[in-house]
């Protein structure tokens, strides 16, 4: 990035400022965005490290075109692998905090604490073009605090040929899933991969597949009887030893599935190009099946939200960048959503033109998402998720009473949710 836009030297900077002042004095129509005394603003923009090849180059390319359109604002893209939330949170406390960052678990607390800026003006009149779910997700006290940059759909991939060979039809109930996973497991191979910890998203899927909810109107709801029943039901997968554990990459990477290590894996729409490249047509997609009659199949809808650091030095420039990329540049949004991994563009008009999502399994996934897709609540931050998942991990390992564990976790999560909403 900065190699292409060398920082001006001190002298050039001073000279530039003088010219700028002179220009402003004669009524030149320069837009002094960013407020940094006439010099060039450099925005620090954070992305988590996407796994799909080409994404980092793409993000850098977008930033460069932005600077081309706005020569007074340089953009430094920082690509952060590993524990993104931890790294982001720690940095937000400091003066090195990024001006713009994406976040995977948008939460009310960020807005209430004044950490992120309201972006209503960034949406402007284009607000109507965003899906209602995506708007709700980032709405706190009637204001919009983020822009969804992509919607992710997470679903179950299965190998058609392997299931057919074993005489198994794609499972439509949890019983069916557990039985299929068991039948496809042997001493050396496993039938299903949901995550290296044996849990991944499966606990929250289980809750929803049995008509339960995670948080309802600020009340933590995952200790309900349906939730307890469904999470406890996951234990069967562990007792049957039909889960792949300890693979080298985790569930969001399709390697286990594409390398033929497992015939069924919970993964995301983003992985579909890689899956297609490896397996051709030999795969299908399914929702997480209903836990039992009366429950509902479920897919998880997630994705990333772009936020502006309200405590940053360049809030205006940051907003300008966010509007430029995630509202105005529909062509780039389309590129971001379908050229690397597959995602659903949050702008309805862009989604309509995303032709790669209109065919085959991708189309099927989008339709399933429209029917069964569920967002995590926007109070689901890392502390709440940690309490829930820790309890679920104990339950599936058979350590303690499920109802009690979830009730304790719910109490703990409630304290955190209350704090976020305070």
């Amino acid at each position, binding site marked *: 990035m900065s190699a292409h836009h060398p920082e001006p030297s001190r002298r050039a900077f001073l000279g530039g400022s003088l010219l700028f002042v002179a220009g402003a004095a004669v009524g030149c129509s320069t837009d002094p965005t960013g407020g940094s005394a006439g010099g060039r603003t450099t925005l620090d923009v954070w992305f*988590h490290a996407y796994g799909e090849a080409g994404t980092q180059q793409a993000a850098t390319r977008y930033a460069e075109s932005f600077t081309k359109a706005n020569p007074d604002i340089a953009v430094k893209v920082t690509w952060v*692998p*590993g*524990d*993104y*939330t*931890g790294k982001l*949170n*720690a940095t*937000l*406390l400091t003066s090195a905090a990024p001006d713009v960052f994406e976040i*995977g678990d948008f939460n009310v*607390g960020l807005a209430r*604490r004044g*950490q992120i800026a309201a972006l209503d003006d960034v949406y402007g009149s284009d607000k109507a073009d965003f899906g209602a779910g995506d708007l709700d997700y980032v709405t706190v006290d009637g204001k919009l605090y983020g822009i969804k940059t992509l919607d992710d759909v997470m679903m179950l991939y299965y190998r058609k040929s392997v299931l057919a060979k074993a005489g198994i039809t794609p499972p439509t109930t949890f019983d069916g899933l557990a039985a299929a996973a068991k039948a496809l497991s042997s*001493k*050396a191979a496993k039938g299903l991969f949901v*995550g*290296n*910890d*044996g*849990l*991944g998203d499966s606990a929250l899927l289980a809750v929803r597949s049995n008509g339960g909810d995670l948080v309802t109107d600020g009340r933590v709801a995952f200790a309900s009887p349906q939730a307890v029943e469904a999470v406890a039901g996951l234990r069967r997968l562990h007792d049957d030893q039909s889960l*792949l*554990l*300890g*693979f*080298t990459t*985790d569930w*969001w990477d399709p390697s286990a599935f594409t390398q033929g*290590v497992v015939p069924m894996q919970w993964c995301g729409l983003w992985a579909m190009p890689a899956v297609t490249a490896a397996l051709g047509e030999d795969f299908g997609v399914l929702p997480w099946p209903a836990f039992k009659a009366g429950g509902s199949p479920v897919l998880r809808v997630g994705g990333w939200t772009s936020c502006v650091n309200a405590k940053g030095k360049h809030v205006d420039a940051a907003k300008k960048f966010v509007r430029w990329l995630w509202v105005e540049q529909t062509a780039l949004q389309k590129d971001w959503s379908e050229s690397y991994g597959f995602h659903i563009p949050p702008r309805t008009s862009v989604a309509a033109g995303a032709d790669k999502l209109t065919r085959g399994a991708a189309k099927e996934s989008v339709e399933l998402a429209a029917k069964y897709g569920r967002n995590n609540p926007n109070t689901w*931050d*890392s*502390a709440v*998720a*940690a*309490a829930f*998942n*820790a309890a*679920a*991990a104990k339950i599936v*390992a*058979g*350590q303690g009473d499920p109802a009690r564990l979830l009730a*304790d976790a719910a109490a*703990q999560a409630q*304290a*955190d949710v209350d*704090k976020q909403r305070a």
Partner: protein
Amino acid sequence: MTTAPTVRRRTDPRAWAAFALLTAPMLIGLGVFKYVAILWSFLLSLSDAHGTIALGHWVGLDNYRRLLGDPAFRTSLGQILLFTAGIVPVTFAVSLGLALLVHRVRRGRAVVRTAFLVPTAVSYVAASLLWKMCLFNGLPAGVANLVGGWFGMSPVPWLQTTDPPLYWIVLVSLRLWLQVGFYLVLFLAGLQNIPRDVYEAAALDGATGLRLLRRITLPLLRGTSVAVLMLQFIAAFQAFDEFYNLFNSGLSGTATAPVQPPLVYLYTTAMGAQDYGLGSAGAFVLTALIVGVTLVQGRVTGFGRADG
């Protein structure tokens, strides 16, 4: 030791200046990074510090109540005690055993000692990587599974198996590999300090093998043993690196890890959830625990006194 052999006279200002100059960096550094830090953090532990390290929102002992009421924290304390109770004797026994063995090696002792010592140069991160991805991964290609396969075992996910808790094997073997060399060197030095004639006298009395070990070697190694135990205890209680790196997988953090030592808990609390009040309270409870045990052990054994 005795006091400095310098003759005591009227302190001249130049002595003061020299003393100040030589000690100031150290005293200021320790003052800021230990004393100020501890005091500030203590005040933070009494306030609600969510996403901030500024003081002001006092909540009394609320953080301590929440901390001790959190089953995750209590479990982590239990688990670290279990870990300590396991790793300390094992490391002690293995390093002592190896030291006795190496001590008797006549040819190539230096080479052997180097082989055991070199792993102490490896970081916990690199070792975790190797243990997680190569030795103990869940695939049939993992080294442990491969070796198990020769004996007819089917591949197991070592880190994820909680019943029986196979992950302890991973954790303990990793720490052994990294630490044994260090304590081996200490024991070897202790053994070399035992005069040869003590053994000769005992041998004349007809003592051999185990008896010799129990009657002569172990008692004479008492000083070393106490030091080793102490260092091991403190090291075990501060375990973080390998737990974080073995169980953390990218976006999902360490919430579902089968073991979470207190420092990982503190890290998630302070750095993940940004609750610096609770994190500070946790740091205090842990420090108090370690200081308490150290004091008790120090009182009993005389280890760690100021003048050596």
